[in-house]
């Protein structure tokens, strides 16, 4: 199914946002996009608008909360922060991700030897 690919992508974006919010504390959408850009080192190209789709989804699941505030350069901006439920979810997903990554890593390593 073609939907699966985007599903995985979405999932990873959600995970990245959760992690970012956990690591940096409350952030606005622009800040999150910058952080991901920084970390991905141009490996991941991403329409920054997609961040908002992901943010909405996370908010509907109550994993993050949002609040209007003022940005560094005195702009009104919506700040997102991770909730308790979100922290729990992050732990679960991190573990999941690591497990899958490890498995895939091992599988790929095997192929390389053969």
């Amino acid at each position, binding site marked *: 199914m073609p939907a699966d690919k985007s599903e995985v992508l979405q999932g990873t974006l959600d995970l990245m946002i959760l992690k970012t919010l956990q690591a940096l504390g409350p952030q606005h959408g622009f800040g999150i996009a910058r952080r991901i850009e920084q970390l991905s080192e141009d490996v991941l190209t991403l*329409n920054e608008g997609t961040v908002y789709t992901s943010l909405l989804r996370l908010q509907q699941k*109550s994993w993050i909360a949002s609040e209007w505030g003022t940005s560094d350069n005195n702009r009104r901006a919506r700040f997102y922060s991770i909730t308790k439920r979100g922290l729990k979810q992050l732990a679960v997903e991190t573990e999941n991700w690591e497990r899958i990554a490890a498995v895939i890593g091992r599988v790929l390593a095997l192929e390389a030897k053969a």
Partner: protein
Amino acid sequence: MSDRALTFAAKLKALFTQRRADTAFDEEMTTHLEMLAEKYEREGMSHKEAARAARRQFGNTTLLKQRQRESRTTMFFTNVWRDVRYGARQLAKTPVFTIVCVLTLALGVGANTAVFSVMHAVLMKMLPVQDASHVFYLHTTGWPDGGSQTGDSNTSFSYTIYRQLRDQSGLQEVMAFIPMSFSGKAPVRVGGVPEEAAGDMVSGNYFHGLGVGTELGRGFVQKDEEDHTPVTVISERFWSTHYARSRDVVGKTLFIKSVPFTIVGVAAKGFEGTEGRLPLDFWIPLQSRPEFNAWGNPAEYGMYLTKLNFWCMKLMVRTAPGVSQQQALARAQTVFDQAAYAGVRPKRAGDETYKISFMDAKQFDTQDDSFARMLKTLMVMVVLVLLIAMSNVVMLLMARNSSRQREFSVRLALGAGRREIARQLLTESLLLVTLGGATAWVLALGATRALGTWSKIQSNLQPDGTVLLLTLGVLFLLALVFGLAPLRAAMSSGPEMVLRSSATVSQSSFQKVRAGNAIIVAQIAMCVVLLVGAGLLQGTLRNLLNTPLGQKPQGLLVFGVHPQHAHTKDESIAFFVALQQRLRTIPGVESVSLVSNRPGSGWSNNNAGILVDGHKPNGIEPDQAEFRGNIVGADYFRTMGVQVLQGRDFSDADTASAPKSLIVNETFAKKYLGSLNAVGHVLTDPKGTDPSLIIGVVKDHKYTSITEEAKPMIWTAFAQGGPQNELNVEIRVTGDPMAMLPTVRKVIAQIDPDMPLLDPTTQSAVFEESISQQALFARLAGCFGILAVVLIATGLYGTLAYRVSRRSAEIGVRMALGAQRSQVVWMVLRGSLLLCAAGVVLGIPLAIAAGRGLESSLYGMKALDAASYAFAVVGVAIVALLASAIPAGRAASVNPTRALRLE
């Protein structure tokens, strides 16, 4: 799972904040773009370039906004809303169809709701008391000889029984209550105006024993009963109507029978007492003052507290927890067996044993059977009406939707899923049912009120939660049926149908025609049953109305008077004699008389035991000589318009000092004296004492009700009898009796401003009221019959018209091949007459069965009344013909060339 629930909740919430969320997101996006552009500018791009790069980096904003909007809230409602709008458009496109369907549904469901609401309130609803399953009304099968009781033979008990049950039976509570008078009402005064209010005198544990709370203040306590304290609890309704729900009502004074009572509480909302059809306004603890004797009886007859054989208290009990109903009843029976014989001669061997029983604490203590039967019969009738209505709508929907087959085919061809079509059909049917249901509820509210008024029930009958639930259930079922019935037809239209012509479609619906026929036949059968029932009941009503009364109730005004300040026998007699003389002087009054029991009101004094001239009456054992009695004033028979056959009417000369005289009716004279020549004979009681001279014989006439048989009857003069604390005044006037009422009120107010006229009405109305139940039954049955006929007519017309229009090609071919117009007309008429005949054949046995069930409600009619059956059969035949006339005419006017060219 919970994530999904949270998401759904968030989406639902977003539904209501749609617009705000849109603008907020706009702002968020703009800020982001600006910040991004600033970043690029800082990195060295020109202002314009930076903005463009930012937009590129951000992505398609419009698409994002749309996607955001979609995922922010749920599309379910948007889709439903679209379906609803589409459905509404479809219904608006065929307004006649829609109106017919909605009205049909409203009438069918509304009538059902109303009748069910009344039936539920009267037969099923429990009293609003705590833990009602442990509360019961106490009934008895009888009372020992020598007991005197109130006329409500099943529910009357003596004070001794009440005390002993309370103290010895182990029942948790025994509550007693006594109406203030036979009408249940008593004169009260809140401010300056005297009026009547309904009340009960109750035991101290009445409120807490039943578990009824108060809105305000307190209920009664045991001490109130023991000390007979002059306090009262008023009903929530009385509080609203007379005190405007003022919270300082507690402590105010309410005058009851001119005695000041202090209001100590307001009963909980919804509690209207335990008297069934009469909602109460106030309660007072058991009183010992002479004017508060049970049922407003004169104290001279003995106070209910001390006269041991006076069976006048109604009782309710609450069984103790953990004790079964049978155990409690058995113990109560033992106590009752003892207590019942207080004040009368002890039980002898061979005497009947009287059984007490517990009846569920319903709002209405066991109704008289005829009313319950009437309600059940009406319920069956309205269900039939509903079935007819429902099948009508189904047929209409099927007809309409099969003409929409092309639409469905097109939609299927364009890629609509079957689910979408099903959802849309269901939405349309839901729309119809919602419209119909809402109209039905409004109708039902009005109809319930009307039903209550017509059946003389003043207590609250309005539909409650249970009724609403049932109605919603019925509506839901209807919506399903209406949605699913046309579904098959719609589904069978595959996309390829678009290409077919309508003629071939009509060929394929042979099966549907048969299904439609079956429905019509069933409808006609039900209609026959309803019409036969209506005919039988109308005949009964006609018989009742045409029964000769033997008197002239037209032109008579009647009202009750209860003197407030006449305490002894002599005072009361003097009061009424003076009253009669004063009323005679009013201009326009032809004659005035007084009577104890209003004729036609159902009340009667029943006695037995006489000797005629010291001998057995006409060879009958004196104790077996039963007769009815009434106590009247001078000029009684002249005023009532009853023919005096022998002797004379009572006159002013028949006073306490004159020889005791009485008047008998024909039946009495024939049965107990052997001839009409009864004047001059002397009647005594079986001991030979208390002689009275027969001074007249009058023609038999109706006393308690229109339906009664003539019974032996005597009339005595009130001036020669015991004390009278209430008498009815009958005034014969020229012209409209009610027009005289204001004048009479003024005269009465001059005599005593504190004395209200009790139940003023016309004597004709009293008799009409006595058959109000039968009249109501007949009229409602008639209404349902007519409703059924109208429904059948519309259903039949709709179906036939539709069929003719589908068959126009076929008819065109027939005509092209030489069929005459008359043949075409006959073809259509024959079809509907055949259906009608089949319906009648099926309906008549059903009607016979139904008629059997009605038998006990009929008067002067046989269940197999030929006229009623003929009326029903002719009725449906005419309806069938009328309903098919227009379609037949349309068929005949088919133009063969045009019809064929269309194909």
